[in-house]
């Protein structure tokens, strides 16, 4: 054990004197060769999504959305006379793989911009690679506030968790007039935890009461114990900010146990699989989302039609936001004087009133998009009915 002297030395030194680091920034970030204009006559756009694993449908939708945006941009003549090309990596839903993929995009592929992840944990892992390398990154759908706090090269085109929790709390209190709500959250998911925290705070603030808090684990399929305990607390509604893969089953089992109160959730519900897994039991429940494909605005309908033609299905919010994220990136590339990380970052940061499909995007000084959320009701014909829009 030859390390022992070294360790003791370290501890002794630590004991002798410490100072605040803040005065001098720690060793200057390694000045990565600011993504030298990617070789040849194409611009590389890096993408990282979970294309395998439990939430794969999210990753695949997102990839489709970006693909569409890139194809459209190329059809319109590309950017600065160059074609756009994408480079996609699968992170299997794991943060260490996301960081690994980001390192590859930055150092091997020299991409101009990175788009990705859905899960916030993975986006944080990527952002920690992109920020020091000074490669701008835009996440389409990571709603955890911590993502963009990593640094000034990290952006998002969606609202943040606190807002979704806030929206549902207001909807539950103002529109549904609920007094007692139970929470059933996913213990393993940061997303679920984030939404729960804000919902709980806001709902209590508005005079409501949280009567039970239960948890489950991603991949569980028996929720009867939790639901029976919730039933005992006799709530007017249940907040289930989880993913569709469990929510469908939860809805079924709630109905089976005779729980008829409405379930409420967030954008994690948005998937065709929700209907397959939940059957008729998911009807009549509410969730907050980024946009509604029923929105009659021509911008939305044009996108929905084009997406349907390309992929044979109605685009979910993931595809739409990914499309918007790519749109913001391409728009910034057109405005930027050159494609170095620095100029591209500045151009993205100046994005104002960009006409995204899922709402007009203006990035605030914390690099988050400020935009309203919609509340949707799960309908009878495997569709979502638009209920209301809640503004920040």
């Amino acid at each position, binding site marked *: 054990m030859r390390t022992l002297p070294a360790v003791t030395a370290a501890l002794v030194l630590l004991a002798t004197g410490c100072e605040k680091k803040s005065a001098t920034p720690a060793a200057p970030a390694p000045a990565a060769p600011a993504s030298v204009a990617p070789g040849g006559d194409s611009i590389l756009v890096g993408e990282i999504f979970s294309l395998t694993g439990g939430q794969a449908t999210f990753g695949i939708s997102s990839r489709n959305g970006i693909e569409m945006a890139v194809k459209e941009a190329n059809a319109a003549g590309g950017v600065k006379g160059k074609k756009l090309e994408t480079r996609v990596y699968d992170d299997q839903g794991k943060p260490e793989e996301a960081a690994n993929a980001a390192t590859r995009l930055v150092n091997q592929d020299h991409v101009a911009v990175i788009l990705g992840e859905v899960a916030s944990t993975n986006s944080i892992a990527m952002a920690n690679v992109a920020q020091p390398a000074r490669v701008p990154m835009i996440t389409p759908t990571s709603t955890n506030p911590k993502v963009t706090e990593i640094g000034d090269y990290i952006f998002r085109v969606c609202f943040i968790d606190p807002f979704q929790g806030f929206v549902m709390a207001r909807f539950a209190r103002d529109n549904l007039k609920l007094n007692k709500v139970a929470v059933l959250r996913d213990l*393993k998911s940061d997303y679920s935890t984030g939404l729960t925290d804000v919902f709980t705070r806001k709902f209590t603030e508005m005079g409501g009461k949280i009567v039970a808090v239960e948890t489950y684990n991603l991949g569980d399929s028996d929720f009867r114990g939790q639901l029976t305990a919730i039933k005992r607390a006799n709530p007017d509604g249940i907040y289930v900010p989880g993913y569709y893969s469990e929510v469908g089953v939860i809805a079924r089992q709630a109905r089976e146990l005779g729980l008829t109160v409405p379930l409420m959730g967030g954008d994690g519900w948005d998937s065709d699989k929700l209907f397959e897994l939940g059957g008729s039991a998911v009807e009549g429940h509410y969730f907050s989302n980024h946009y509604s494909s029923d929105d009659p605005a021509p911008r939305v309908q044009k996108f929905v039609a084009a997406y349907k033609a390309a992929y044979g299905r109605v685009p979910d919010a993931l595809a739409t936001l990914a499309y918007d994220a790519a749109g913001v990136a391409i728009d910034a590339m057109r405005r930027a004087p050159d494609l170095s990380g620095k100029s591209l970052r500045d151009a993205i940061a100046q994005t104002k009133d960009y006409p995204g499909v899922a709402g007009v995007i203006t990035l605030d000084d914390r690099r988050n998009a400020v935009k309203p959320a919609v509340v949707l009701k799960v309908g009878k014909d495997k569709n979502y009915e638009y209920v209301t829009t809640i503004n920040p």
Partner: protein
Amino acid sequence: MASLPAPLRGVFPVLLALLLLGALQVVVGQLPFFVYLSSVVGVNVILAVSLNIVNGMTGQFSIGHAGFMAVGAYVGGKLALEMKDLAISGIPHGVSDQLQLLASLAVGGAAAGVAGFLVGLPSLRLRGDYLAIVTLGFGEMIRVIVSNLEVFGRALGLSGIPQTSSFMMIWMCVFVVVLVARRIQDSAHGRSLLAIREDEVAAEAMGVDTTAYKVRAFVISSFFAGVAGALFAHFVPIINPGSFTFVKSIEVVTMVVAGGLGSISGSIVAAVVLTLLPEVLRSLFLQVGGLEGGAALAQKVDQIRMPVYGILLVILMLSRPQGVFGSRELWDAFPRWWGRGRRAEE
């Protein structure tokens, strides 16, 4: 080397490794992707070699190594977060960072060692296959506990841990774990462990205090798993319970089994190969298949990794249960004077 004074002989290889790695650090420090890859490889080598002390040399079977790694990662990571804004006065920041890293490695390792002691003391009385299941249960419990604790960030885990781990530090740790494993292997202690592996009852009859030896081996092994975890926390920007699952444990088991139970160099080679193989295949498919088909194939590489590990385990057990290297060492092939303190690849 024989002419060196005795006290120096122990320190000499360490100094030599330090110098060598220091020089390499200067060379490769500018290649971030290489540094990242070599970090992943290094951590896996530490995990494999340390697991080999229990699974290979002692013949016990732990399949909860990721649990000890998690203890090290979380405790070391938490400490690093607490010390983040501090620096030791009077020395350059770079050096201070490395000393802090060293401190959190030591603390993370120690915490994992303590956990190893607590788990090992009662459960090492159990027979092999039961022990395996108990270690698995322990690994899962660690995850449940971490997911429930606010201090460890629950599901989101810890992020913002200073990314101070360097090529030199990781490979220095690799060097130390290999050195320790080799010293154990060659010592009377190691012979006792071997005796336990070959026949526990006979070893006991010969006066080997089997429980004490097993617990000691277990603690050393957990300590290094903790160190590996703490290193991991210092180069992966975020750690969360999902990084330390049963799957990770089995990955390490596969490395140890493939390399050869009891062979240190076998573990090293297997860890390096099994970590790099998917990377190489991925790059290869991208190069050969072009963007469209290649990317799809490269994606499959990630998917088929786990089933391939499974098939690999089955085939190995059926055809060569002692692993590729058996309990032989790579360095046995070299003449004696080649210096027995070196690592296999050098």
